[in-house]
C-alpha cells in the first residue's frame, strides 16, 4: 500500500511541476525526465529483487554495467576525448570498487545483493559526477590558458608539467561541492542513506555512523576517479611531439 501512495505522490508532483514549468518552456523536459526517473527506478528495484535470489556474480555484473554507463557519460562530457572511453570507465570502476570492498571486508554490511548494489551505485554515481565536472573544467582551463601551457612547453616542460596547474584546478573545482556538503553534513541536510535508515526504523547512531562511512567513501572515490580520469586524459590534449592540439572543441 505504501509503495502505491509513494508512486502516486511522485506522479502527482511530476505532472504539477511540468505544468508549472510549461510557462518557462521546459514542461515537456520535466515530464520526460520525471517519467524516465520513475521507470528507471522501478526497473532497478525489479533488478535488485531478482538479484536477491542470484549468485553475487550477477550483482557485480550490474555494477560493472553501471560503471560502463557512468564512464560513457563522463566521456561524453569530455567532448569524446581520444582514448577517453576506456579511461573514464576504468577510472570510475576502479575507484568505486576500491572503496566498496572495505564495507564488506570489515563486516559493516553482509555480502548480499541488497547491500552491494545500492552502496556500489552510490559510489559509481558520485564518482561519475565528480569526474564529469573535473574533466569539463580541466579541458576549459587548458583551452583558456593555452598561452600559459605553451609557455611551459616552450621552455621544454613535458605536457604533464605544462598542464599541471590546469589539472589541479579541474580537480579542485570538481571537489568543492563535495567538500561543502561534508562541511554542512547534519547541519543543513540529512543525507539519503541516513534518512532511509531512520525511516526504516534504524538506531540514529548506527544510521549516522554508516552514513559518515559512506559519505567519506563517496568523497574519496570521487577524488580518486577524477584524478585518474584527468591524469590519463592529459595525453589526449597533446600530440606525440608534445604540442598542444590546435582544436580542442
Amino acid at each position: 500500500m505504501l509503495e502505491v501512495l509513494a508512486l502516486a505522490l511522485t506522479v502527482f508532483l511530476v505532472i504539477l511541476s511540468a505544468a508549472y514549468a510549461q510557462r518557462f518552456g521546459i514542461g515537456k523536459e520535466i515530464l520526460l525526465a520525471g517519467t524516465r526517473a520513475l521507470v528507471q527506478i522501478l526497473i532497478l528495484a525489479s533488478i535488485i529483487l531478482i538479484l536477491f535470489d542470484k549468485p553475487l556474480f550477477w550483482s557485480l555484473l550490474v555494477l560493472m554495467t553501471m560503471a560502463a554507463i557512468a564512464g560513457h557519460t563522463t566521456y561524453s562530457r569530455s567532448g569524446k576525448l581520444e582514448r577517453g572511453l576506456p579511461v573514464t570507465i576504468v577510472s570510475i570502476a576502479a575507484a568505486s570498487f576500491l572503496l566498496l570492498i572495505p564495507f564488506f571486508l570489515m563486516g559493516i554490511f553482509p555480502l548480499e545483493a541488497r547491500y552491494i548494489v545500492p552502496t556500489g551505485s552510490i559510489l559509481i554515481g558520485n564518482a561519475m559526477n565528480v569526474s564529469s565536472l573535473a574533466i569539463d573544467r580541466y579541458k576549459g582551463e587548458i583551452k583558456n590558458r593555452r598561452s600559459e601551457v605553451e609557455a611551459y612547453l616552450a621552455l621544454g616542460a613535458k605536457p604533464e608539467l605544462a598542464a599541471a596547474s590546469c589539472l589541479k584546478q579541474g580537480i579542485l573545482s570538481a571537489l568543492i561541492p563535495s567538500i561543502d556538503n561534508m562541511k554542512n553534513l547534519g547541519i543543513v541536510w540529512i543525507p539519503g542513506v541516513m534518512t532511509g535508515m531512520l525511516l526504516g526504523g534504524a538506531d540514529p547512531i548506527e544510521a549516522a555512523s554508516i552514513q559518515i562511512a559512506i559519505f567519506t567513501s563517496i568523497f574519496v572515490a570521487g577524488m580518486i576517479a577524477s584524478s585518474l580520469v584527468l591524469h590519463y586524459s592529459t595525453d589526449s590534449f597533446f600530440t606525440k611531439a608534445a604540442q598542444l592540439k590546435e582544436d580542442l572543441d
Partner: protein
Amino acid sequence: MSHVHLELKKVSKAVFRKVNNTRVRTQILGGLDLKVNKGELVTIMGASGSGKSTLLRLINRLSEIDSGIILLNSNDIRSLVPMELRRKIGMVFQVPVTFKGSVRDNLAFGMNLWGRNTGIENLSRDAGIPEELLDADAVQLSIGEKQRVCIARALANQPEVLLLDEPTSSLDAVSAQKIETLLLGLQKERDLTILWVTHEKEQVERIGGRSLILKNGRLEDYHA
C-alpha cells in the same frame, strides 16, 4: 668562420581558421627557405596574419610543418626529443606569461627542469631585473617587467637560438627600447642566434641585423 646554425628548406604550413563557424584551410607558408648563421641576428617583418608567429612556432615545434624540413646544426629537428629541442631553441612570446610564484621561482623553472644552475642573480642582472624584485609575485608585475622575466626565464635554459615573437609590441616606447638594448647586448655577450619577428620598420632600422620580409608565404630580403 660562422656555420649555418638553422636552416629551413621548402617549409610549408596551412592553418585552419574559423570563418562563420566553418573551419577554413589557409595556406600560411609555402615553400619557405631560410639559412641563419651561428650568432646572426635576423629580423622578420610582415603583415598581420602573414605567418610570422607560425614560422617561429614551427622552429621550436610548438606546431608541426606540413612539408619541408627544418635543420638545427644540420640535424632534422624532428630527430630531436621535442623537450630538448625547446631547451636549445628558446622562445619569447608577444604577450608575456609569467607563472604563479615569485620572479625567482620563474627564473629557477628551467634550471630545475634541466638540472643546470646558471645563477639566478647573474641572470636577473643580465636581464635588467632589480634584485629587490626577485621575491615579488611574478603575476603582479608590469608588462615590461614580465617581459624581462620571460626573457631571463628563456635564457636560463642556455639556448643556442632565441626566437622573439614581437617581444616589445605590448610595451611603451621607453620600455621597448630598453628591452631592445637588453636583447642586443645579450646576443653579443652570449653569441646567440636570434630570429626577431616585428611589424615595426623603425625597430628593424634600430636593431640592425639581416632584415627579411614574409610575403605570400616566403621570405624576401627586406631592403631589396
